[in-house]
């Protein structure tokens, strides 16, 4: 450790120590206090919270901007608004950069962008995840186009890294204008309630141009993006919780796309039966139930990490472990919209599937859906386009895929929720499964329209026909007889059956024909 007692080069040592100290001060004590007063931690404090203690090695702490217009030379600060480097989270190497609001409002400059892209480049070449902490006023107006170009560089790297290394963004302050696109391109976004905001155009401009009055929170706050737009995958109550989310998320992901997700050992017996599973499904098919109860029973230790919880609740996605192996779950949620598929849920599930596929995470799909939501709202907003994304994503995924039909699986939704012919590897069904083109009532009305019209007692004939239909089609046995369902299983054995399938598929290798890339209907 250098002390002032070192005699040699004492002037140089002093200059070095001074610069080091100043760099740590970032924007100065006043600005740090202002940041704290707003209930926000500084960039360095946040990185401290995220990384394992003492593991942070900073890169470019001494960069400054080189501008001279608008008296900018008087406002030179070390780090120039972005603090970044590498360290470990629970022992795993990651790269992190945090916008520093205390320096010129965290606005992005050419040097800031250079630093970020330098870190992203390192992350790419070493195959480590990269985490970005947003707290920025946007582009630095004084730097003009150079700042915008900086953003473009970052976006380019986001794309380069997409599907190669996990990219996570934490929104712990504003990010507006072009700045929001980087987070949108990353794999997961965590926003902190009442602290993080994201919007393309701020409320002031919105008021000026459209006359619409809307608050920061309503326009682009954490809850808005968590539940309405789906931009945020997680909404944290405070900065501590935000870091907890990031650490938990990382524990399910591999370092990069050539690695398997981290496998752990578990004492939860892989052969554990649960005789209560069948009791979760009500006898009355229109009565809803908690799909999450089923998921909690089959995963190790009941631990299910839900992703995108507040958005499109009619479908559930998230990570769990089965016998220590990470699995991505997709499940219809009968508690909302009876588990029907719609625009938002198709998007949510499709993106989740594609991420898992990129990072070698096997998929388990639990099905209980009556079909796609009807109505002009859905049609006019493009349910056709969005719904097709789900089908595309399933077909594209070469990771092991298992589907378990629990309840209804009708029509297009039956196909879309990982049916066999989308080249799903293993398809199971419970005895309560009902695979059909349509539900009994609707089907009978169409198939027997003439007979019902001519009948003397249409009501009882309808009931009879519905019962016949139910016996013939509303069960998994027809599908099983064609091999489109590999087997009907005892619900109590769900966990061991799924684990056995995952074990069998562990070394699955599948590839598509070479092409530049497909044309998923975006």
């Amino acid at each position: 450790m250098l002390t002032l007692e070192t005699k040699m080069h004492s002037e140089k040592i002093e200059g070095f120590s001074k610069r080091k100290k100043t760099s740590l001060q970032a924007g100065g004590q006043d600005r740090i206090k202002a940041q704290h007063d707003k209930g926000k931690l500084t960039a360095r404090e946040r990185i401290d919270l995220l990384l394992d203690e003492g593991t942070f090695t900073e890169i470019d702490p001494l960069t400054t901007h080189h501008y001279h217009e608008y008296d900018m030379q008087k406002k030179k600060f070390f780090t120039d608004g972005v603090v970044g480097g590498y360290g470990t989270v629970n022992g795993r190497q990651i790269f992190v950069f945090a916008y520093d609001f205390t320096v010129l409002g965290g606005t992005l400059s050419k040097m800031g962008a250079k630093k970020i892209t330098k870190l992203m480049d390192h992350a790419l070449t070493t195959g480590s995840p990269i985490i970005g902490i947003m707290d920025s006023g946007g582009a630095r107006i004084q730097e003009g186009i150079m700042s915008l170009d900086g953003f473009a560089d970052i976006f380019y790297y986001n794309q380069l890294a997409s599907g190669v290394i996990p990219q996570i963004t934490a929104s712990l302050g504003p990010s507006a204008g072009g700045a929001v696109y980087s987070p949108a391109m990353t794999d997961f976004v965590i926003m902190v309630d009442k602290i993080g905001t994201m919007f393309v155009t701020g409320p002031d401009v919105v008021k000026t141009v459209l006359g619409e009055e809307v608050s920061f929170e309503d326009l682009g706050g954490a809850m808005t993006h968590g539940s309405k737009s789906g931009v945020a995958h997680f909404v944290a109550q405070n900065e501590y919780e935000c870091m907890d989310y990031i650490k938990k998320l990382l524990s399910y992901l591999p370092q990069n796309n050539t690695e398997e997700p981290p496998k752990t050992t578990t004492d939860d017996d892989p052969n554990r039966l649960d005789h209560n599973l069948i009791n979760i499904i009500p006898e009355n098919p229109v009565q809803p139930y908690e799909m999450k109860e089923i998921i909690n029973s089959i995963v190790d230790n009941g631990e299910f990490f839900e992703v995108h919880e507040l958005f499109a609740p009619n479908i559930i996605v998230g990570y769990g472990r089965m016998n220590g192996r990470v699995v991505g779950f997709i499940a219809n949620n009968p508690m909302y919209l009876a588990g029907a598929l719609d625009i938002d849920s198709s998007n949510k599930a499709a993106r989740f599937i594609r991420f898992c596929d990129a990072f070698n995470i096997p998929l388990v799909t639990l099905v209980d859906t009556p079909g796609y939501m009807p109505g002009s709202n859905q049609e006019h907003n493009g349910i056709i386009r969005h719904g097709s994304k789900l089908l595309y994503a399933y077909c594209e995924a070469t990771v092991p895929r298992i589907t378990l039909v629990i309840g209804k699986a009708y029509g297009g939704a039956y196909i879309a929720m990982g049916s066999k012919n989308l080249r799903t590897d293993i398809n199971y069904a419970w005895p309560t499964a009902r695979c059909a083109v349509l539900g009994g009532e609707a089907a009978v009305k169409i198939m027997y329209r003439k007979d019902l019209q001519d009948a003397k007692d249409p009501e009882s004939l309808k009931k009879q026909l519905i019962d016949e239909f139910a016996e013939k089609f509303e069960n998994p046995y027809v599908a099983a007889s064609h091999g489109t369902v590999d087997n009907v299983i005892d619900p109590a054995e769900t966990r061991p059956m799924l684990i056995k399938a995952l074990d069998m598929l562990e070394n699955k290798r599948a590839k598509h024909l070479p092409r530049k890339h497909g044309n998923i209907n975006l």
Partner: protein
Amino acid sequence: MDYKIQDIEKSFEGKITENLGNNEYLIKINDNEHRLTILNMTSKGIEFILDQKYHRAKYLEQSTNEMNLVIDNVPITLNIHTHFDEVVYKKTGGGGTVDSQLSLKSQIPGKVVSIAVQEGDSVKKGDVVCTLESMKMQVAIKAHKDGSIKSIKIKDGGTVAKGDAVAEIE
């Protein structure tokens, strides 16, 4: 950094002052310096000698601002990074103390036998919100603070895991 031990109203400042090499360290707790020698350390636990006394600690689960450990068979929960608490809880309020939390969480697993309140009811701290059955005993889950029932998260006959929210009280 700053630490707080739950259930004891005291804050501590602690850091490593010097690494003497050979697994020996000088650490400082508030204004006192101590000598610490690590005998054995893994990610799960540590055996060490602090000022000539032997101790054994197991590290249990940990989150960003909370560390759970068992020191010589005594379980202790520490809040870490507490010097950030004031800033972090400024906008979102509370944190730390159970009382101000929105969710009333169940401390035990069990089956819901009865729900004593409805949404909108006003409750006082200690009022019975619901009754769970576990191990043939019925246990009442009581409101952790005064307020009104914002939402009920459980249903009659359903199962609740330890830590699950049973209701929200605001």
